[in-house]
């Protein structure tokens, strides 16, 4: 009797252990029969992997999505990471991989050596796409130097294209708390009202203060009164740069005060800049401050003109007699790069009026290089038919 009880107990314990250890349908043990389990190890392991729950993300038999994923990548990730989904959806601008739903661009879905399941160490990961930002400076901002991009940037989304974690000076004041010292360096001004990034490069610079490299001569020489002693309107600039005024004397003039003050400052920083003209390095984003609609329209298009972020290639930034402030007639502007196209083209010019409006045809009649379109070569319609029938009605 006693032996029977012991045997039964042993059998029960063995069965119990068997139930706990043996993989249920779709769980890790059977997956690892084929997939090398070593590939799923790392300092950080995704919790479904740690729990041997491969079936939380994968279907063991068939699926509509690559990797036998149960759902589209982004949808699948957000099915657990709901707080992140909410935050991303509230962002004005999404990081491109987030927008495209390719979480794997940055994260390893099974295991990684870095926190957040990142595939590489912080800075190395960011620079693998943002190569142009990988620069060395004589003086570097500590987070940049140590590859902690996420100290300032939110890698999922933010309120502007830079994906900064906070707006205005509050981003900087989170770390730079020595108010008295900063007031001393900024003529006693309240740091909360300063536009830190207007003058300081957040990654690095030649000087310890990380000032942007191109400097206005009166600023360099400490001759503040050269500008501040004058009226604060455009006359403060035109007093030394009188010839510039004539460049605005066009049908479409870019001269427009955006704050009731000096209109020049809508684009130019009066103290320092990244390039000649005291302008920011990222030209397009300077334009975006007022022309958000153009950038939003462009972002939706499948086919975009290369180099679209360098607006001054095609547009005259002070003034033009052409709509869209082009540097000349569209055929002239386009031919500056597309020289060969001058030799073969649909008839354009005075002898080829657009039947829709009587205006001489030009490159822009068929192409939209500015915002781009859903059709290749930035055509306004499908070249097979949709574009041509707008004029060739009997086609």
């Amino acid at each position, binding site marked *: 009797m006693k032996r029977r009880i012991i045997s039964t107990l042993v059998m029960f314990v063995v069965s119990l252990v068997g139930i706990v250890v043996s993989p249920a349908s779709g769980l890790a043990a059977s997956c690892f029969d084929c997939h090398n389990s070593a590939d799923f190890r790392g300092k950080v392991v995704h919790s479904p992997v740690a729990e041997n729950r491969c079936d939380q993300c994968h279907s063991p038999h068939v699926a509509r999505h690559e990797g036998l994923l149960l759902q589209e990548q982004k949808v699948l990730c957000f099915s657990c990471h709901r707080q992140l989904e909410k935050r991303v959806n509230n962002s004005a601008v999404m990081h491109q991989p987030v927008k495209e739903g390719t979480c794997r661009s940055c994260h390893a879905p099974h295991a990684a050596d870095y926190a957040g399941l990142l595939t590489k160490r912080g800075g190395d990961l960011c620079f693998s796409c943002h190569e142009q930002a990988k620069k060395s400076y004589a003086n570097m901002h500590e987070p940049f130097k140590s590859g902690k991009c996420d100290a300032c940037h939110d890698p999922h989304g933010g309120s502007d294209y830079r994906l900064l974690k906070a707006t205005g000076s509050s981003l900087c004041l989170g770390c730079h708390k020595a108010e008295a010292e900063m007031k001393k360096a900024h003529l006693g001004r309240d740091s909360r009202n300063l536009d830190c990034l207007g003058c300081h490069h957040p990654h690095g610079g030649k000087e310890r203060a990380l000032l942007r490299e191109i400097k206005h001569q009166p600023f360099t020489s400490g001759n503040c009164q050269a500008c501040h002693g004058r009226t604060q309107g455009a006359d403060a600039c035109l007093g030394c740069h009188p010839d510039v005024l004539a460049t605005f004397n066009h049908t479409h003039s870019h*001269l427009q005060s*955006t*704050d009731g003050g000096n209109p020049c400052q809508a684009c130019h920083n009066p103290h320092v800049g990244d390039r000649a003209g005291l302008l920011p390095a990222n030209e397009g984003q300077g334009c975006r401050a007022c022309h958000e609609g153009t950038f939003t329209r462009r972002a939706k298009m499948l086919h975009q003109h290369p180099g679209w972020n360098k607006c001054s290639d095609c547009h005259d930034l002070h003034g033009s*007699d052409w*709509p869209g402030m082009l540097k000349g007639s569209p055929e002239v502007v386009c031919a500056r790069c597309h020289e060969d196209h001058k030799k073969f083209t649909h008839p354009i010019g005075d002898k080829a009026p657009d039947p*829709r*409006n009587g*205006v001489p045809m030009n490159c822009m009649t068929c192409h939209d290089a500015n915002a781009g379109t859903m059709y290749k070569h930035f055509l306004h319609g499908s070249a097979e038919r949709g574009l041509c029938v707008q004029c060739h009605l009997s086609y």
Partner: protein
Amino acid sequence: MTYRILTALLGFLLVVSPVWADGGPWNFLMQLPVNDAGITIDRPIAIAIDEENKRYYVVDAVGGTLISFDSDGKHLAAFNAGGELKQPVAMAKGLRGMLWVIERSTNQLFYVNPKEQEVRKFPLSYPDGSLIFPARLAVDSQGRLLVLDRMRGAVVRLDDNLKVEQSFVGGQGSKGFVDFKVRKDGLWALDGLAGKVYRFAEDGTSSVVALETRLEFPVSLEIDDAGQLYVLDRHAGSVAVFGPRGDFRFDFLGRGKRHGRLWYPSQLLFDWEGRLCVVDEGNNRVDIFSR
């Protein structure tokens, strides 16, 4: 009885719905210049009206001319002030048949007597000597001249000696005015980037309306008798209509080159009969719509 009311209502809706199908009660009336007029406008940039004589004046910036049409769209004359106009960008009809024109090549204000072909030229500045960069202009019911200054994003009213006697500027957060209209109930100004419309009383005090919908690139403003705000979106090629409190009502037209489309339009204006004129720079025409 109920059946009759329902039938009548249904009939009414059937009649009304096609009119509103395009997003508003506006119908195309005519185009300037009309198709068979035998004239072309190189680049219409602005329009002005002569209420008394019921004439339209279209400003051609490239051709350097002012082109007049009667109320039926018949071409009357083209005028370049004896070659003095090189690049006019705006015009207003003054008292006694005189014309005020903004000449962009010199940023001067021209006072033109069309009959005598006489032109007087005036640079404009503030009392402190700083420049005014004139962009739009209007003459109020008392014959006073108002000018939009892009240098400060403000509207200024000038006295008889063309000295600034009153400035109309936006409040905190203003991004500068891009257009204005003078009406009996005050001066209305469009702050395009901020998406706001200001209304100023004679003494400069203002009220502001925030437009409910963000537009792509607002460049011109009109106000109808019901207080609805019409805003021209240059990049979207459409006219958006808002209620007096800025609530979005409808929009119409759209970006393109065909009839009924706009390509870089530049100005809105109601004529003497409340017809809506839309200056369509990119399509070289002015479209006129009636209710």
